[in-house]
């Protein structure tokens, strides 16, 4: 019957290191202290201290004051409260990790993960100010949390890996910059500050006006551009997926068609899209249509291949069963082949979701669409040496579009496949 050998839920797994729990308790204690120190530093901080003014909430406060004719002291005071709050949150979540570890709770790792995330947030908000000791403290918090997560007992959750990698990258990145400064900028990529901008500067840049004294923040402009591009990508995704599905059906149905057309489908993917895009644009004229077509061009192929594979996946006995019912072709297709192909098709749709966004961005370039992500990327790569953070911020937003689209398809997949054997069970 159902899996009866579930692990006892209250009990944590054996730690991978004998002293793992003790070590992670010590580390979380230090993390707790770090959070409290940062909070204490901000509580009494003068309003003109660069660690406050250049912080992400500080910059937002200045913009709000300038735009709404507010008192800078008031908005900066609010920013200071926000920074104290974030620091206390990091301290509190570290305390939560400590509590879970002390209780030998099975959710220790989850508690530590939340603490790690709170330090990530802190690093994105506390500015790197020369000579200030405040900036390294949250970085140290991340490093300690990573070690604590590594040695702590408990089950590893699915999302853990994603956040561990991004946190480790953030930590490594910032430490590398610091090392470069300490060694007189002799390390590769540290000779000019624009080669490796601070992550805090990127986060801060998102909350700065897109143009000097402009009414809109960069993040707002980029979000609009992202939505604009996503709509084109979505049309391309739907059209490309339908085309891919139909081609897969045709290939599964006829060996002759597969032999005749599949090589061309493969060849179409080896042709550089950058070369094809201008032709499609000149053929179809300006507007969203050529962009959607280019997006569909990058979308259909994985769907074709996986639909074909999925439709051919039922085992011979499942097909003989249909034959024993003298089942007509439509029944074999819709009651056996298509349901069996769904897992394959969804795998392809997830690949295509991200591909369609790339396709839309590439398609926007030759069609000179000025409202999409492509224009933003062009604009900000022109100013890269002076304002590298803007291009990085644009990349972050563009990546988010792909990730969100991917996640949306995953959600649909989970809903459609909710009655099937899940990989996890």
């Amino acid at each position, binding site marked *: *019957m*159902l899996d009866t050998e579930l692990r006892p839920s209250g009990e944590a797994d054996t730690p991978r290191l004998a002293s793992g729990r003790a070590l992670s308790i010590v580390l979380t204690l230090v993390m707790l202290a770090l959070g409290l120190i940062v909070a204490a530093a901000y509580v009494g901080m003068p309003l003109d201290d660069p660690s406050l003014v250049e912080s992400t909430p500080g910059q937002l406060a200045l913009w709000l004051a300038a735009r709404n004719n507010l008192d800078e002291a008031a908005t900066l005071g609010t920013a200071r409260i926000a920074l104290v709050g974030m620091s206390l949150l990091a301290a509190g979540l570290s305390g939560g990790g400590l509590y879970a570890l002390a209780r030998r709770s099975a959710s220790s790792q989850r508690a530590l993960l939340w603490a790690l995330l709170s330090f990530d947030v802190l690093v994105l908000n506390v500015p790197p100010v020369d000579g200030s000791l405040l900036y390294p403290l949250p970085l140290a918090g991340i490093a300690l949390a990573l070690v604590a997560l590594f040695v702590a007992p408990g089950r590893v959750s699915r999302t853990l890996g994603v956040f561990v990698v991004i946190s480790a990258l953030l930590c490594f990145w910032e430490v590398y910059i610091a090392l470069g400064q300490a060694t007189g900028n002799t390390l590769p990529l540290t000779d000019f500050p624009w080669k490796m901008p601070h992550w805090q500067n990127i986060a801060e840049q998102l909350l700065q006006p897109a143009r000097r004294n402009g009414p809109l923040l960069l993040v707002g402009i980029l979000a609009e551009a992202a939505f604009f591009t996503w709509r084109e990508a979505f049309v391309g995704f739907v059209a490309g997926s339908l085309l891919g599905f139909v081609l897969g059906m045709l290939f599964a149905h006829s060996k002759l068609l597969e032999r005749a057309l599949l090589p061309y489908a493969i060849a179409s993917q080896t042709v550089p899209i950058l070369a094809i895009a201008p032709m499609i644009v000149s053929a179809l004229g300006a507007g969203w249509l050529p962009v959607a077509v280019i997006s569909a061009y990058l979308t259909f192929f994985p769907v074709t291949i996986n639909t074909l594979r999925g439709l051919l996946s039922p*085992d011979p*006995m*499942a097909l*003989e*069963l*249909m*034959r*024993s*019912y*003298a*089942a*007509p072709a439509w*029944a074999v297709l819709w*009651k*056996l082949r298509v*349901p*069996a192909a*769904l897992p394959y098709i969804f795998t392809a749709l997830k690949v295509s979701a991200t591909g369609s966004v790339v396709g839309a961005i590439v398609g926007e370039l030759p069609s000179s669409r000025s409202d999409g992500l492509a224009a933003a990327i062009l604009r900000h790569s022109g100013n890269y040496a002076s304002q590298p953070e803007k291009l990085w911020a644009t990349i972050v937003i563009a990546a988010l579009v792909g990730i969100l689209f991917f996640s949306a398809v995953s959600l649909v997949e989970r809903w459609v496949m909710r*009655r*099937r*054997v899940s990989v996890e069970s």
Partner: protein
Amino acid sequence: MDTSTSGGSQTSNPDQKVVSIKNVHKVFNSGSGDAVVALQDINLEIGANEFVSLTGPSGCGKSTLLRLIADLLQPTAGQLLVNGKPPHQARQDRDYGFVFQAATLYDWRSVSQNVQLPLEIMGYSPRERAERARAMLKLVELEKFADHHPWQLSGGMQQRVAIARALAFEPALLLMDEPFGALDEFTRERMNMELLNIWGKAGGTIIFVTHSIPEAVFLSSRVVVMSPRPGRITKVTNIDLPRPRNFETREDPRFFAAVTEVRESLREAYGV
């Protein structure tokens, strides 16, 4: 070739036969260098409401013979009739249900939906489908699992669902290809009992392929012994054990005598 093929039949009218096989040959890869004679000169007649087992070692063609009856394969030579019709016509008329060695349930369908699969294909109304699925699951004593999914059931339960599915459209002929071959000995013996119960309630003709001699003897009214290279029928033994058969049957001296008889006919075929 043994002549006892007529042993179990009481009538001489060929139209009365559920299955009638005359001089059937089956050659795989015929015409090429690696041609394999799977069946040679098969003659067999099976009457209504018989339970006939085909048994023999691997490669004797017992599964091939069953697939010829089901029109899942076509004979190279000879004549096959199912309910007096060519197998192709019998398949189009949905004259038989087939149970495979694996349950071959579709895992995206619930147990009840799996039982309804043939009914959907054959155009039954939704109400009738639901009613029949309920009745069939009651027959195999799985009515409580109607909304479960196949992967939530044990192997024996899955095979019972497969039997319910094969019986859902009430075919008069049930073809079973080593349906309990993958089950452990205890489950298999219990499934044998349950199959006899189901047969007792549902009636009809069953042709059952197995490589277990005790299983064949326990279930059948006739056991067809086959031997390989080339596949042929060496002996057909009537099993006259009283019905209903139950766990005591397996301890009956007549049961052992019948098992021994079948086993010896297998040994004769090998000349051991």
